[in-house]
């Protein structure tokens, strides 16, 4: 036993690891697959409702208001507006980003729904509603059909958006 840890050194067993693991086979469906394939090309692709004209990104394939299929793809730009945000200060298991960091809802120009993005390259005490941001993508050879293709959003230097331009998207 020399060289091995003795039972006395280890002490009594007080905890037991009991992981629960679920293995899924996931399909995002046709509409969201278009969005994901867009990410693989380094662009945001939404879809427009033929009835109300709203542009959803990512599109679920139908308009939740009108209940009709969204068939027209819309290439959206790389630029949007922070509508709301949260500064994360709390560490948690599996955290992959150093705290504090900023999680924000970003409304892309031309879209009618915001989605969540990480905001970087700005001190956490300077984040604000209306901040204009642009997506920073991974290197072209690292693009995949996943939101991991978007590294984060950062301020693009434009003046803040007028509240009137995004007040209906909060």
């Amino acid at each position, binding site marked *: 036993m020399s060289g*091995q840890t003795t*039972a006395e050194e*280890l002490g*009594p*067993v*007080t*905890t*037991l*690891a*009991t*992981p*629960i*693991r*679920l*293995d*899924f*086979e*996931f*399909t*995002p*469906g*046709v509409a*969201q*697959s*278009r969005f*994901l*394939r867009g990410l693989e090309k380094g662009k945001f692709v939404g879809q427009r409702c033929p009835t109300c004209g709203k542009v959803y990104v990512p599109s679920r394939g139908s308009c939740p208001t009108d209940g009709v299929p969204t068939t027209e793809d819309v290439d959206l730009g790389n630029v949007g507006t922070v509508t709301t945000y949260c500064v994360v200060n709390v560490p948690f*298991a599996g955290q992959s980003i150093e705290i504090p960091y900023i999680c924000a809802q970003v409304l892309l120009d031309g879209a009618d729904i915001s989605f969540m993005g990480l905001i970087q390259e700005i001190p956490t005490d300077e984040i604000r509603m209306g901040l204009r941001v642009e997506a920073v993508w991974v290197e072209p050879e690292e693009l995949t*059909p996943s939101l991991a293709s978007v590294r984060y959003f950062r301020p693009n230097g434009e003046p803040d958006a007028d509240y009137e331009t995004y007040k209906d998207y909060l």
Partner: protein
Amino acid sequence: MPESEALHASHVLEYPYSRSVGPVIGAFLTGLRDGKLLGVRGTGGSVIVPPTEYDPATGEDTGELVEVGPGGVVESWAWVPNPLPKHPLARPFAWALIRLDGADTAMLHVVDAGGPDQVATGDRVTVRFRPAGERIGAMADIEAFVPEGGAS
């Protein structure tokens, strides 16, 4: 691949839970790590394995820990011809209720018996621990039970 075709991916969701085991189960697991099987004395002197903090029949506190095994008797069993990835053995095996020598209750574990014709109710089996350096204080520290004096 046509643009309309839906993507597909595997996705793993895992919760890395860790439980605190308390003094009695903790002692049992510590025993496993040390290569020993421990039960606990319940009301009227019966020996409960795995040990519990309370006698399940009377609700009274249990008493001293007692060493049981390493041999025991198969009380019932079910053959697993096609083990799943999460099963303790990659080859076919039996789940069995095993009443260890000195115990009054049976414990669920694995019998590594080669085939369903080599395990029967009433068979004598004995514990096969993992090597000391691989034991961590968990049920899997027991690799399997094997037929006593058998070839496995």
